[in-house]
């Protein structure tokens, strides 16, 4: 009997360590059909998550299932998964056509079927004209497209694309995004990774933000944007009367938390609106009710990550 999870990609409490180095930690995710974007800076764990999804590595803890399958059953598992890697992953000396044809033969397709599907996938990515040129002579965008072609050539149900828009010119980018979107609408699980959220948000049904191996936000694009916007910022204040400051802060609706330091010479405040917080602090100082020794954002790193992810100017938040 088919379970509901047989139509999903499921990560259950998944951790992956490379020796002492953390890849991803305690990931709980459910990815349904449609386009899902993994967004995060370099080293955030996107590729690790994709490698787990494609059965290339095993979780140190927890389990990961793709449509109810794991790579323990390689024949069935790899038939439903297509992977487009991030790097120039080409065996030396091959033409684009040979590259795709070979990959299909590795899937176990006979020569005739492999030829038909090679042509079909090359056509899908508009690479028929360049199919018989050596991959080494391709531009970066063409390499990206031929990689994409090989990942869809065997008609997978789950398509995992690591930074698929890197190096594409605007036209090829638009075409690729249209293709991803269409494949998502056809019921495929299309998982795309990217550095920048706005790059993929127009086609994403679901967005997963990653940082330092953790999922920091997930859901539909609008929800994630709101979550990011409302992410409280921590500010540390060293002052003469933290109790008084805390009392004044709690009267503000943007203050989430204020915690007085053990030495009672400062506090840590969490606010959803840093500008209003600094204005208030300025006003209190002017009124002469307390003396400020130091003010510093306590989680600048996290905020910079968010700013980086949301990143683009003019992006709608």
């Amino acid at each position, binding site marked *: 009997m088919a379970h509901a999870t047989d139509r999903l990609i499921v990560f259950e409490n998944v951790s992956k360590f490379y020796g002492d180095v953390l890849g991803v930690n305690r990931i709980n995710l459910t990815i349904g059909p449609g386009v899902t974007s993994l967004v995060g800076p370099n080293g955030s764990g996107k590729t690790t998550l994709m490698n787990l999804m494609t059965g290339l*590595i095993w979780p140190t803890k927890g389990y990961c299932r793709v449509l109810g399958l794991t790579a323990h059953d390689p024949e069935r598992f790899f038939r439903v998964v297509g992977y487009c890697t991030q790097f*120039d992953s080409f065996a030396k000396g091959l033409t684009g056509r040979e590259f795709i044809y070979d990959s299909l033969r590795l899937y*176990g397709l006979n020569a005739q079927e492999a030829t038909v599907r090679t042509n079909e996938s090359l056509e899908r990515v508009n690479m028929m004209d360049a199919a018989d040129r050596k991959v080494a002579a391709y531009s970066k965008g063409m390499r990206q497209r031929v990689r994409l072609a090989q990942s869809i050539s065997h008609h997978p149900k789950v398509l995992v694309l690591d930074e698929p828009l890197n190096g594409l010119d605007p036209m090829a980018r638009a075409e690729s995004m*249209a293709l991803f979107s269409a494949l998502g609408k056809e019921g495929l699980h299309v998982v795309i990774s990217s550095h920048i959220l706005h790059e993929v948000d127009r086609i994403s049904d679901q967005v997963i933000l990653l940082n330092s191996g953790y999922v920091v936000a997930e859901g539909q694009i609008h929800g994630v944007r709101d979550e990011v916007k409302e992410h409280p910022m921590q500010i540390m204040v060293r002052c003469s009367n933290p109790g008084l400051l805390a009392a004044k802060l709690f009267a503000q609706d943007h203050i989430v938390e204020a915690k007085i330091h053990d030495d009672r010479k400062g506090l840590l405040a969490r606010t959803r609106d840093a500008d209003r917080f600094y204005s208030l602090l300025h006003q209190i100082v002017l009124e002469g009710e307390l003396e400020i020794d130091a003010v510093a954002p306590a989680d600048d790193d996290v905020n910079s990550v968010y700013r980086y992810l949301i990143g683009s100017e003019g992006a709608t938040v």
Partner: protein
Amino acid sequence: MAVYKRNYKPYSGELTANWTRFLILPRYSLAKIFDSKLLVGFLVVCLIPFLVSATLIYLSGNPAVRTLLGMQGANFIGINNTFFYYLLRFQSSLAFLITAWIGPGLVSPDLTNNALPLYLCRPFSRTEYVLGKISVLFFLLSLITWIPDIFLFLLQAELEGNGWLIANLPIARAIVLGSLLWITVISLLALALSAWVKWRIAASGLMFAIFFVAAGFGEAFNAVLRTYWGHTINLVYVMNLIWADLFGVPMNISINRRMMDDPRTMTLPLGFAWLVLIGVCGVCLLLLNRRLQAKEVIR
């Protein structure tokens, strides 16, 4: 790009047998090798010992032709286990040169280009990958070792007749087993070096060093300590020892040394020689296992 409007149908047809898929890998490697005129030329040169041996066997089996050519000695040349033993020893040197030439270029380009994830995100294991790569060397080296030697063996059996074939079957066994053993050792070593040393020339150089520099160290060790255990790191010596046993010929030891009762004239125990070869193959497999990982980046 309107192609996505096509109906999306996963492949549900018949699949090729699992065990045949590793044969996809050598196709382009071999095509590339046979594209190189230099390499093809060298392969032809490697067949010269075969042609010379075929001529000798023919002459040996035809006294009339020898008479015509003015070669009228009573004992022309004995086509026996010693003949095939020395022939294989010579061919194995050529096989080594080919391996040092081709082997280092088999795995390192895939690692440099991060191509492994692409191979391994298919129903295709690392073992099959290694099998695919090593089969390139097995094919080429077989062409210049045991395949022509077996042909020569059959030629001799045909010329000699009178039950020579049956009486000398152990020679055929020694040819095949000895060749495959040598091919396995040098191929695994070449693949392991190719996986760890990115620069092809350096990998080839290292291969020579493992065989010849280590042999030199072994000899120096024997000379200084007046022992024979230094042969352990002399893979050519170890291999010769096993071949000599397989062909049933004595190891060639210098008479001067023997007369001096030099401990270096003693050979390694045969079982130990086998252990050394198994150990070398094991280390190569471990090195390959460690290097050939599917993941392309760490985080």
